[in-house]
């Protein structure tokens, strides 16, 4: 059984992740190319794996993708498949990157790797599902999009993470 404090934190982060992803999916237009999104929810996943364990992060992503698919009405559709595959793949890469390369890279580097993995996984999956190699033409654009979405998200985590740690420390002291 986890301490109550952890459960409250994880629930709040999950709530933030779900709202951010749902609002992005429902109200924000695609950036430049079809399907490209800000991926703000990815930074929340990164926060979860920084503040808690990698298992929490995987669970966080699975529950978030499931819940958002219920909100947007895409549960068990191909959209859901793309979302789940991209989310889980990027989470695993970020977990590995965070564990072995954090220090040399800041969270921005970790986030960029996650965004890159997310986009490439979804592209490969779409080639598989649609059976059409021509979709690979989008690859350079998606790699480029990974930079302009992944890096700012990581920078945000760079700022947020110390503050959240400070806030939890203060809560514990009082």
């Amino acid at each position, binding site marked *: 059984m986890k301490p109550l404090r952890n459960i409250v934190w994880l629930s709040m982060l999950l709530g933030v992740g779900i709202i951010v992803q749902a609002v992005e999916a429902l109200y924000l237009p695609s950036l430049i190319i079809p399907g490209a999104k800000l991926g703000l929810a990815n930074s929340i996943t990164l926060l979860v794996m920084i503040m808690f364990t990698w298992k929490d992060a995987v669970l966080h992503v699975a529950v978030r993708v499931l819940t958002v698919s219920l909100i947007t009405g895409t549960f068990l559709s191909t959209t859901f498949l793309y979302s789940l595959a991209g989310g889980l793949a990027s989470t695993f890469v970020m977990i590995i990157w965070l564990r072995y*390369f954090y220090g*040399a*890279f*800041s969270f*921005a*580097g970790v986030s*960029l*790797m996650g965004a*890159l993995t997310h986009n490439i996984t979804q592209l490969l999956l779409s080639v598989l599902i*649609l*059976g*059409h*190699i*021509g979709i*690979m*033409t989008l*690859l*350079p*654009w998606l*790699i*480029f999009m*990974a*930079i302009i979405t992944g*890096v700012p998200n990581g*920078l945000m985590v*760079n700022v947020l993470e110390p503050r959240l740690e400070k806030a939890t420390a203060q809560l514990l002291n009082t």
Partner: protein
Amino acid sequence: MLTVWDRALIVAVMAMAALSFFLLPKAIGAAGRERAVIIQSGSRPIQSFPINEDRVINIDRQDGFCVVQVKAGRVRVKNSDCPKKLCKSQGWIDDIGEPIVCLPHQTVINVSSKSAEGSKVDAVVR
């Protein structure tokens, strides 16, 4: 905020994007431009030929005949004994997504391609 390695990673990923931008179209194009003519009887493909080799194919069925001509990267029905000759009057085709159908003989002539690269259509839904 950004470490040296972060910056190096960003530069590396940008290089990756640029590299794939220039290399991918060639890689996809080579696979995509391989077009084939597929002749179907009903929903069953019966014969397939490369589109860039000239030839004349005679299709003889119990209910009639159909002469298909492949020439200079295009295909047409040269002659048929069907009543309205709609297949013949469609003329030459050279792209995916514009099949010639000879309904009385249930014969379909299609151009297939692994990719829509260099094609007039964006994509084909299967």
